[in-house]
């Protein structure tokens, strides 16, 4: 089917089969202490067999409630209205018993977190055969055989042996394969995948998306793919619906949508995604404000308050989804103007010029690079693996960090990138520990933290090194107000009351928070505000080095861009040094001056961000970059990608030669002599000619 034909459900209905799933005016609400939350406010769509509808939205947009509503898995307190027609029957209003006959047989579901979505006390074979036997009259033996076949289909190696294994014996990616196998066990006609790859590493994400596609082909099912990741949608959906405040605000074929997003929200969302492709990173344009709370929504377009092109009429009535020629359906009064290219959704002030950025992008502006703030040489950290209950025996060693070294100067950002288990967070924590490392040297602001005589000076370093955590809600004490949260580090270093009061106000202003926020508790703040508080708290003692552990992964895309810009401004104004740990290469590209790619406890490639992203040398870096889905359907479909097989091995027994050898695509095609070298000799760091800062560790590249 040509992608251009993917316009609206009606067009397809004429040329292909009847829809397998028809949702009409679905409404879902939950009671809450603040009032009734209208999570879904009337959405309609048709899903055709074999097609994929991507539903994109930020947290709280109602996309997960939609999935649960379709599956009939809403909590008992929720009320649902409208209709969900599947095979001629309306699922809304069915009781649990009737729904249970539909679930698993006609609709299969893939959940977000594979680590918690499998019952820990049953073997995966048992889980799968149970799923089969709920709907099919199979003997135990026959169900087990079928379970093994399904495991084989979704790519579990040695399925017959592994069927008896328990979920905890599988990695996250493998568990998600099992969840997919369970979802397709009874060959349903509809598959619902709710953020199926959000909890997974990027190279594993690519594999799981392939499995999902395979599962869809195998069953011919229609797929509802729910995600916040525009890149995933671009590569895998036929049609896309953008959800905002419980409604579809734009629905179109994937090419039309990405070619010219017509609803201002969609356009701004796309502009706020940090990407890894192209030349110099374009500045990110955050969407101001926060998504609305879905309790007692005022009249008018819910996006109007954040919209740069809103007119007075936008505040009066909420626009209906209506068809715009060539652009699917859009719920915006100004859709025609945007569609024809007469109106730039980022704002009327800048019709043609690039969107006004509050701060120039990092890396492009002049960064004053100063003295070395952090020097790490040959850092080693191992963890013992023990066995047995009462008397623990040491049965192995995890080489979490294995000879890592880098330098970081004032006014500079170093991004440590890698998948989970690569040792990046351990490296960060070892630096923050401020004591003699197990192996190697750590020097902060000229002080060797391992030196015997440095104890006093190391204590002074505490205020020079601060951390910002991944989840601000978990990192901020819920019982302290923002003002007290900010005062705490100042009290700890022994400042007096009056200077603390002044400094707290200063800090609030510094991170762009209103003084009124100071009296609130963290729970009353939005995600973006919380992360700003966490940053302000880290800055309280005027540190030289700020360690940021996945600082943006808990934030929505539209809010992320604002924090990225804030970090860039703070770095410039305070000439801070940032050590950013992240698995999100797009984010790293936007915040870092230099990057270091880690794999299995070692740095495999490092250099300036520009150099590494435009000309990656190490096969792992290449694979990592190519695994990231681009929010551009044309390039996403055509580009060549390096899909890595398998997963990062355990660091218990790292290979004697190159750490990447198990998964290396270059190794697979190399001749025997080179292979032997890869297996036995650890590659040295090689400098790229003419770019001495860019180095990588590979025999073959």
């Amino acid at each position: 089917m040509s992608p251009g034909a993917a316009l609206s459900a009606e067009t397809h209905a004429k040329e292909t089969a009847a829809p397998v799933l028809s949702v009409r005016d679905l409404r879902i609400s939950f009671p809450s202490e603040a009032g009734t939350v209208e999570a879904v406010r009337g959405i309609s769509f048709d899903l055709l067999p074999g097609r994929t509808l991507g539903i994109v939205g930020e947290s709280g947009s109602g996309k997960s409630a939609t999935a649960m509503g379709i599956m009939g898995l809403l909590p008992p307190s929720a009320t649902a209205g409208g209709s969900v027609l599947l095979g001629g029957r309306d699922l809304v209003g069915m009781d649990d018993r009737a729904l249970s006959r539909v679930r698993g047989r006609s609709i299969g579901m893939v959940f977000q977190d594979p680590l918690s979505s499998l019952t820990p006390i049953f073997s995966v074979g048992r889980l799968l055969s149970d799923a089969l036997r709920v709907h099919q009259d199979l003997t135990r033996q026959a169900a087990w055989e079928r379970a093994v076949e399904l495991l084989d289909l979704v790519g579990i190696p040695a399925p017959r042996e592994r069927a008896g294994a328990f979920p905890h014996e599988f990695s996250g990616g493998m568990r998600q394969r099992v969840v997919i196998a369970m979802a397709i066990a009874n060959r349903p006609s509809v598959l619902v995948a709710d953020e199926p790859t959000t909890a997974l590493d990027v190279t594993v994400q690519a594999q799981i998306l392939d499995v999902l596609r395979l599962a869809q082909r195998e069953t011919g099912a229609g797929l509802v793919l729910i995600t916040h990741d525009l890149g995933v949608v671009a590569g895998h959906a036929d049609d896309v619906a953008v959800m905002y405040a419980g409604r579809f605000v734009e629905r179109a074929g994937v090419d039309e949508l990405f070619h010219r997003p017509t609803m201002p929200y969609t356009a701004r969302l796309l502009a706020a995604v940090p990407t890894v492709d192209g030349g110099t990173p374009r500045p990110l344009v955050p969407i101001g404000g926060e998504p609305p709370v879905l309790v007692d929504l005022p009249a008018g377009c819910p996006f109007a308050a954040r919209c740069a092109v809103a007119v007075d009429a936008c505040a009066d009535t909420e626009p209906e989804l209506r068809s715009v020629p060539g652009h699917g359906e859009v719920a915006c009064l100004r859709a025609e103007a945007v569609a024809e290219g007469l109106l730039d959704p980022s704002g009327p002030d800048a019709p043609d010029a690039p969107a006004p950025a509050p701060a120039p992008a990092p890396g492009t502006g002049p960064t004053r690079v100063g003295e070395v703030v952090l020097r790490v040489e040959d850092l080693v950290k191992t963890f013992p693996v023990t066995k047995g209950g009462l008397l623990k025996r040491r049965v192995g060693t995890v080489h979490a960090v294995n000879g890592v070294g880098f330098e970081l100067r004032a006014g500079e950002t170093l991004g440590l990138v890698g998948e989970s288990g690569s040792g990046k967070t351990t490296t960060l924590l070892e630096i923050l520990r401020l004591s003699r490392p197990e192996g190697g040297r750590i020097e902060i602001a000229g002080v060797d933290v391992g030196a015997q005589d440095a104890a006093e000076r190391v204590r002074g370093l505490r205020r020079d090194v601060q951390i910002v955590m991944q989840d601000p809600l978990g990192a901020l004490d819920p019982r302290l107000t923002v003002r007290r949260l900010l005062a705490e580090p100042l009290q700890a270093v022994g400042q007096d009351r009056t200077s603390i009061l002044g400094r707290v106000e200063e800090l609030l202003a510094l991170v762009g928070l209103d003084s009124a926020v100071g009296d609130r508790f963290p729970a009353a703040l939005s995600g973006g505000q919380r992360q700003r508080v966490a940053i302000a708290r880290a800055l309280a003692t005027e540190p030289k080095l700020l360690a940021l552990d996945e600082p943006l992964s808990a934030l929505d895309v539209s809010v992320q861009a604002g924090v990225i810009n804030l970090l860039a401004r703070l770095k410039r104004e305070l000439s801070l040094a940032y050590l950013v740990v992240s698995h999100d290469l797009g984010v790293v590209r936007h915040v870092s001056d230099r990057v270091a790619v880690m794999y299995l406890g070692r740095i495999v490639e490092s250099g300036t961000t520009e150099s590494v992203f435009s000309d990656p040398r190490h096969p792992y870096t290449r694979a990592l970059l190519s695994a990231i889905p681009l929010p551009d359907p044309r390039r996403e479909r055509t580009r060549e990608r390096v899909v890595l097989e398998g997963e990062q091995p355990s660091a218990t027994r790292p290979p004697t030669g190159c750490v990447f050898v198990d998964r290396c695509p270059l190794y697979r095609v190399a001749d025997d002599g080179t292979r032997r070298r890869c297996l036995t000799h650890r590659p040295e760091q090689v400098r790229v000619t003419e770019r001495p800062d860019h180095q990588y560790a590979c025999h073959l590249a």
Partner: protein
Amino acid sequence: MPGGEVRLVVRHVTRKATGWLLMIVVATNVTYLLASFFLDPRSNFKDLRPVRSEAQIDRALAPYNLDPRVPLVDRWWDWLTSVVLHFDWGRSPTGVSVNGEIGYRSLVSAELVVLSLVFSVLAGVALGVYTASRQYGWSDRVSQAVSVVVFNVPTSVAALAVVFVAIWLNQHAGLHFLYVAGENAPGVQGLLPTVGDRLLHLILPTLTLTLMGYVGYHLTQRSLLLDTINADFVRTAQATGLTRSQAIRRHALRTALIPTATSVAFSVPAVFTGAIVTETIFGWSGMGSYFIQTISKNDVHGTVATAAFAAALTAIGAILADVATVFLDPRVRVS
């Protein structure tokens, strides 16, 4: 379960049982040493008239291996060898054989403790499951309130209340099978009547101990199940086509029972302590009353035998818990 797995389970349980046996040995020996330090059998003779000399007293104690002039280590060794070789737990300061006393009493007490433990677990877990699936409903609130009140009533008060209610029932409803004293009626002949008579006597004490014991299981099982009832894997199970109650029963409950099974083992000492009071009130001559009696009479060997009995009960509870865990959690079999 295939043969290989049965072997694994047997090995697992045997290993655990060996550990517990070791624990009993250590606990009993430590109790012996402590009891020898703190209990002074000589004081039993101090009040006797005519007044005995120290030497007389010591001589009187010597045949029972309680002579304080003999070094503790020697006494301990004699005691240990007689326990290990002849299963003879020694004699009281007045020469009564401990074996003769505990033989019958341990049966009586074990019956009481084990039965009430089983009933507490059953009632508590059932109530916990019932109320967890009706969280914040009226049955949940009422049963929780009742449980909290019962939890705060001391055993002696509860036992007396049970006695009063039983007497009232006996009088008003014409019931005559609720016995409020003793563990059996005198003069009952034949096997079946004896068993029946004993069971009738068991009703009230067991009821009392069950009342004392079930609350813990109710409240913990309720919160354990509430933790898993909304777990992702229960939702996954529903997505495969189970109804909510099926998913809870097959996936959430089984997972939530594992910690309960473990905790049963460690509640045996508490039940035993409760039994001491209960036995006193219901006029049972069981291990509980024997325990108090031996301590007040400075009976070192009797005290140690009671401690060993409690340790053995705990071990039995723990082994049963291990077996239950193995059946609930197949992961134990593999690792």
